[in-house]
């Protein structure tokens, strides 16, 4: 039974977490390989369990009931196609991250603050996916937050990281409370917290609707939906890079899992307006996330914002799925849902890859600010090569995997004219436009990220003396790159594997993907559209190979090195290069005034004045400014006002008691 093996592995991870401090105390130098090695093995076991359950059909699925957790309910665990699919996503990421960390972790200054929490974090994420009752789910969910919070706090001397950890834990707790409310509604006053009971219970429409809203608040805050994303760009970069990869690439998927599990599986029949909310939030997140990403200078924060974008894309797909499901368009719903889960999977691959690349840059050059990098392609060639692969994948360029999932979502959008609701008819194409805009902006964002970081000339001594990192890191990245390519070139089997999931969620499945001819995939039917990543890949390879062969054989292959041309005025100073900020300037100028109230002030000295000219740029995070800052202000204001009550005289306190007494007496007197 895979579920038993999976639970045992989770227990093993917890065990590793517990013995980690002991190992660190005894043999510090052994601790890193032991902990990450063990995590790697256990994650591999979990991955196999997930794959078996996903591909092996009902014989490998199943559920387990343990007498722990909430007393009269116990802990229920189940492995159905949905959890199996996400188990695969989680543990693939976990496996690679553990492998990466065997090398990367050696650079950690205080391993004691990372090693115990890392396996705990993995255990938490796995448990969320395996849980089949509300209590276990929430415990695992919050445990996942808590352990990742500890990881965020690993480098706690930096005040910014502490703040990041604080905001993170607060938002995580907010999310958990929202989920708690949602489960409370689903369970009803009698407290039937097992998923199977919730699934079979009848839910009144307003209950289901409220559950959706609460799930968007709860799971959405964890996944990073705008405007609940504020913690994400703070917390993800603060953690060590392999943890950032897990948080961005995997933990957000766990949040998406939670959303899907409740909204599609437990909450009952969806109403059409659910799709409206989900689509708006998804499209907004996609565009705002990537707009933020384009403007970031911190490489890891840029990647974190890009996660917001991709989560938005996944939610667009889910919104479409809801829209189709509520109108009983099973095939279309299956397409949309499959596409979003596939995108979640893809995102976990390339986002981990990119974060690993950022980690390499961090260890190799000791710098996260891309304005101080540059030219790393020469010093860190393999990292550059792999990071480029990640950039291509995340920019949704064929023949890599990012394109396939976005293409499928676009195909799903094309099916939406059949929807009967007017609001959806307006909204769906608009969200399609947003999706396309987000994809194009993502390409700009990653041209900038790669170009400024790896290409051009070094902008600082740190970049100039950067060194390539060790084999473990590079190998882990190769594995991810290969997976990105495989998923992009042969997407068919991946989609087929997801068909039991969509069967479970929307009661339909995409057509069985033909293995032949040429590994092409068809979303609905062959006449509508098809795509063969394999052929595209093959053609590109052949065409470039042919071009190179022909030119080199029949024309010239001579090369001469010379100083750059630059229209005749090359300047040797690296300061004259295009910077990250100047690269983003046109985009900032076009989108900034709306999205960030961007303002640039140029102060030109008068002629003859020796003052330097100054360009000041101000960007405002409107979400923070209009939602969080006022909230914070209100809380502190109220706290300040109420704080007076700490400093009263005894007489005043007695007056309070007296007033309460009189009030209650009056109440009782008027009661009768």
């Amino acid at each position, binding site marked *: 039974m895979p579920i038993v093996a999976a639970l045992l592995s989770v227990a093993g991870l917890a065990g590793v977490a517990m013995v980690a401090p002991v190992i660190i105390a005894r043999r510090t130098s052994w601790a890193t390989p032991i902990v990450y090695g063990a995590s790697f093995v256990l994650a591999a076991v979990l991955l196999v369990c997930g794959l078996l359950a996903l591909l092996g059909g009902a014989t490998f699925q199943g559920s387990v009931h343990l*007498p*722990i*957790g*909430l*007393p*009269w309910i116990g802990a229920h665990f189940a492995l159905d196609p949905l959890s199996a699919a996400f188990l695969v996503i989680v543990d693939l990421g976990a496996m690679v991250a553990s492998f990466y960390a065997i090398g990367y972790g050696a650079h950690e200054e205080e391993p*004691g*603050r990372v090693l115990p929490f890392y396996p705990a974090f993995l255990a938490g994420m796995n448990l969320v996916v395996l849980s089949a009752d*509300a*209590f276990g789910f*929430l*415990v695992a969910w*919050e*445990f996942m937050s*808590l352990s990742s919070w500890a990881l965020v*706090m690993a480098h*706690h*001397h930096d*005040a910014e990281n*502490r703040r990041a*950890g*604080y905001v993170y834990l*607060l938002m995580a*707790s*907010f999310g958990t*409370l929202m989920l*708690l*409310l949602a489960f*409370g*509604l689903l*369970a*009803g*006053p*009698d*407290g039937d*917290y097992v998923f199977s009971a919730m699934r079979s219970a009848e839910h009144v429409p307003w209950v289901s609707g*409220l559950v959706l809203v609460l799930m968007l608040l709860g799971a959405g805050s964890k996944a990073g939906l705008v405007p609940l994303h504020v913690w994400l760009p703070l917390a993800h970069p603060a953690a060590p890079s392999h943890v950032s990869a897990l948080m961005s690439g995997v933990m957000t998927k766990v949040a998406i899992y939670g959303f899907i599990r409740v909204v599609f599986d437990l909450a009952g029949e969806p109403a059409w307006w659910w799709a409206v909310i989900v689509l708006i939030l998804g499209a907004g997140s996609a565009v705002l996330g990537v707009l933020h990403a384009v403007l970031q200078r911190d490489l890891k924060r840029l990647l974190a914002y890009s996660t917001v974008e991709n989560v938005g894309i996944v939610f667009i797909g889910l919104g479409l799925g809801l829209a189709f499901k509520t109108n009983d368009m099973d095939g279309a719903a299956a397409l949309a849902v499959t596409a979003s889960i596939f995108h979640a999977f893809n995102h976990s691959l390339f986002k981990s890859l990119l974060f690993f690349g950022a980690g390499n840059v961090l260890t190799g050059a000791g710098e996260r600010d891309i304005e101080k990098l540059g030219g790393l392609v020469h010093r860190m060639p393999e990292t550059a090569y792999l990071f480029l692969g990640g950039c291509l994948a995340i920019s949704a360029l064929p023949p890599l995997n990012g394109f396939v999932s976005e293409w499928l979502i676009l195909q799903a959008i094309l099916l939406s004219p059949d929807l009967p609701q007017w609001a959806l008819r307006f909204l769906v194409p608009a969200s399609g436009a947003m999706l396309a805009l987000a994809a194009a902006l993502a390409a700009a964002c990653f041209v900038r990220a790669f170009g400024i970081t790896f290409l051009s000339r070094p902008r600082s001594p740190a970049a100039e003396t950067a060194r390539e990192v060790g084999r473990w890191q590079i190998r882990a990245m190769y594995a991810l790159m290969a997976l990105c390519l495989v998923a992009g070139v042969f997407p068919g089997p991946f989609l087929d594997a997801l068909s039991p999931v969509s069967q479970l969620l929307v009661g339909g499945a995409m057509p069985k993907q033909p293995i032949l001819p040429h590994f092409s995939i068809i979303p609905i039917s062959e006449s509508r559209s098809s795509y063969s990543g394999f052929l595209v890949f093959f053609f590109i390879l052949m065409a470039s190979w042919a071009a190179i062969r022909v030119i080199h054989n029949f024309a010239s292959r001579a090369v001469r090195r010379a100083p750059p041309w630059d229209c005749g005025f090359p300047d040797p100073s690296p300061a004259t290069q295009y910077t990250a900020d100047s690269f983003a300037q046109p985009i900032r100028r076009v989108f900034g005034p709306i999205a960030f109230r961007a303002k640039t002030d140029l102060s030109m000295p008068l002629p003859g004045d020796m003052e330097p000219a100054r360009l000041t740029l101000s960007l405002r995070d409107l979400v923070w400014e209009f939602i969080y800052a006022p909230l914070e202000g209100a*809380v*502190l204001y*109220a*706290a*300040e006002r*109420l*704080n007076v*009550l*700490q400093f009263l005289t*005894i007489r005043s*306190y*007695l007056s*309070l*008691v007296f*007033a*309460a*007494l009189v009030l*209650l*007496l009056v*109440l*009782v007197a008027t*009661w*009768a």
Partner: protein
Amino acid sequence: MTAFLHQLPFAPIDAVLVVPGIAALLLALIPQYKLGARVNMLASGITFLFALTLLVERPDPTVSILFVDDLNVVFIVLGTFVGFTTSIFSASYIGHEIEIGRLKPGYIRFYHGMYQALSFSMNLGLTANNVGLMWVAVELATLTTVLMVGLYRTQAALEAAWKYFILGSVGIALALFGTILIYMAARPVIGEGHDAMVWTTLIANAAAFSPELLNVAFVFLMLGYGTKVGLAPLHAWLPDAHAEGPTPISAVLSGLLLNVALYALLRFKMLLAANPFAVAPGPLLVSLGLVSLIFAAFMLYLRRDIKRLFAYSSIEHMGLIAFAFGMGGPLANFAGLLHMTMHSLTKSAIFFAVGQVAQVKGTQKIADIRGLTESHPTLGWSLVVGVAAIAGLPPMGIFTSEFLLVSSTFAREPLLAIPLVAGLLLAFGALIWRLTGIAFGKPSPSVVNAGRRPSMLPLIIHLVLVLIAGLYLPGPLVAWFQNVARMLG
């Protein structure tokens, strides 16, 4: 086991009172610190053991003025346990205080004697089968704790003790009036004399009492005992008493005394609930609970003193518990009981940690305590675990109770859940904010290179218990809690 108990020359329930009583007198005569601390531990331990036997063997309620039922045995066992672990903590803590000269050796006899006297009075309050006797016991407990709070004889300590004394006295006076009214309500039904104040008969006959009288009585009892519970706006004594007294006493206050007062409140609530015509006590408790929760949550933000911070957190949790019992129903009552248990264990553990923190850093000012996980890893991480537990993070036990409370409340009264959740979140934000500063960042200098290894044992025992409870609650315990929850209606 049972046979053994029968061979004893005295009933275990008497021993729960007699042991601390004798110990109090004995300790008042022992001037040596070490011996005193050992006797104190021993007496607390024996009391705890006898309390444990009450789980197995209960005295017949008709023969004694003391009684034990499902409800108060929870409180007794919990109380004596926390009393025992606190006495272990107190041994090392007070030793240190004497070393640095903060506490004069002359007060040792007084301190230990009072410790046992407090234990006695609380056990009496919990076991008394008589409303009047219970009142006397609570008054006695107030007096002893007042004296303990003022132990350091500093200006601030006296100030706190005085405030506590005055507010506590007024509270206790109101409670007495409520008690008299209960008697008045019972007399026409039960008849004059003792029986009209005995819990067991009161509960049995409550349905026939005058509902109007019960209502008025409950107002007085709620305000009276509510003052001791620390519900806002009657809470004013609590933060200062926690902050200025010796830390073991803070632990006892939060972990025990508040529970005793809560126990009294619960008893009277049961009385009211048994009368069909009386006003439902639920809404009153719910509103007081919510006010306390939200008020305390806001107050947490601007605290500068670490002990006062956690004192306000106690107010917050007492508010939650009152809310839970006010909601009623099997789930919420269960949550309330569990929450109370977990809060006692966790909060006293936090005070154990805080006491040591204040000693190693030489200050109670939050701003001067930083980077604990770095300078004192075990202590620092224990504090992190403790605060995470008290803030309601899993896998610790408080999460379980908050889970049940919030989810069941939302399913029943969605509107009430909104302030509840807001309060929880507010308090969470404040606690984690403080924790971030205390536990992380660059460490602040420590004063002592503690020659004495502080006793981590009680702290770790408590935290492990809380952790286990968050993951697994033994079946019998659950059945028993459920039974009590049903009793509470």
